[in-house]
């Protein structure tokens, strides 16, 4: 393998600019959340107790698996194994939908327990962060769609676009890792 000697930026460098910018925006959301959290720790702790850590961990692992599938897809496509790449892209999409479904299930559960968007500050942050992340997941499906579209025809198959879409999808993943820590674990 020549990977060791050849240095390259995966995908369009432009997408990396987006990733870094969007990460900063999310960091500012988290910072605001933490500042307000420290102002009324009991309210946040008691509200947080109504979230299920199990569902959170399940969601995280599903999304990590989806990311893993995309990483496999990129490597397969680079090695010219396009069938395997496609399979992994579909797998990633399917896991993305599992995440989405479990997210909707969790929202429904929390709403049924009587906690809405405007119930209190914690749930405001909870719904805001999960919803804006969910929007990123939906946009991520477009990115995965681009990957699948690229892989389908031999005439297209731009490795750069495949990697660009993958970079976006991993961003969705690591943003969730941070959101998960913020909402479910932080004390």
């Amino acid at each position, binding site marked *: 393998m020549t990977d060791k000697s050849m240095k390259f930026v995966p995908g*369009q*460098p*432009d*997408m990396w*600019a*987006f990733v870094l*910018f*969007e990460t900063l*925006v999310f960091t*500012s*959301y988290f910072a*605001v959340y933490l500042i*307000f959290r420290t102002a009324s720790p009991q309210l946040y702790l008691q509200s947080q107790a109504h979230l299920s850590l199990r569902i959170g961990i399940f969601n995280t692992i599903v999304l990590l698996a989806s990311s893993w599938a995309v990483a496999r897809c990129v490597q397969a496509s680079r090695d010219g194994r396009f069938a395997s790449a496609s399979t992994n892209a579909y797998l990633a999409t399917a896991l993305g939908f599992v995440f989405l479904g479990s997210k909707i299930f969790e929202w429904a559960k929390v709403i049924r327990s009587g906690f809405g*968007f*405007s119930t209190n*500050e914690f749930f*405001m*942050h909870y719904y*805001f962060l999960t919803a*804006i992340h969910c*929007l990123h997941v939906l*946009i991520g499906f477009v990115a995965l769609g681009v990957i699948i579209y690229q892989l389908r025809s031999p005439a297209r198959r731009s490795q750069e676009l495949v990697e660009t879409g993958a970079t976006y999808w991993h961003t969705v993943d690591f943003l969730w890792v941070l959101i998960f820590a913020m909402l479910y674990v932080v004390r």
Partner: protein
Amino acid sequence: MNGRRELWFAWWTTVVFYQLFGVVFFVLTRTQPPPDPGWDASRVAQWFHDHHFGLLVGFGIMFLITGMTAPQNALIAYSMRRMSVSRAFGYSYLVLYSLSAIPGMLLMCIVLTVGAMRPDRDPELTSWLYDFAFLSFVGTMGVFLIGSLVWMLAILIDKNGVFPKWFGYLNLCNALTEVVVSPAWIFKHGVLAWNGLIAWWIDMVVFGIYTGVFLMQLRKMIQREDFGDGPLPDSAPDQESVPSTMASSAS
């Protein structure tokens, strides 16, 4: 024949407009950063009282100059015309953003002018005008959201290299702020209210960066423009040596 000066006209009008916009909204009328949505009617009436002349003079200036948004929209539409994408993109953007100025800005100017004109109005009504003004201003989202996405899509699929792709992705960041601001319709207090840390301050920083960047990018585009329809050259052509088709009847 100097086509570039037509583009520079649009660019400079845009720059001057944003300067004046900043002066009017941040200095004269003090409507940015926005006052508190949680105030009761008498506090709102007090706010109108305190900013009486600032509001009337400031928005008078806005009524005079809002037309200057047209060259900005025209220039951005032109940037899409220069791309390898269908004309439909530029026209969509032109219509969306021309439309957006009325609910997204002028309505606020009109309603706050009405509020400031009669200090003796019943504070309950004044308070309704206050809500109307600020919610129409921050809560007009779809036109900007879809407009940014149209521009983003055009940049991403363009083959003429009019803008770098990262700028296309930055449009997505700007579009997302229009989603983030939507809870302003629900909350009267806290970080998601119309003056909140997230819904106003963070969004404003993103919008500020976006505006600064798109002005610079448009400037670069005008410098590189060769009035052809192929890929845009990297550096500015010395002369407009390319034969003009539109103006051939002129000389």
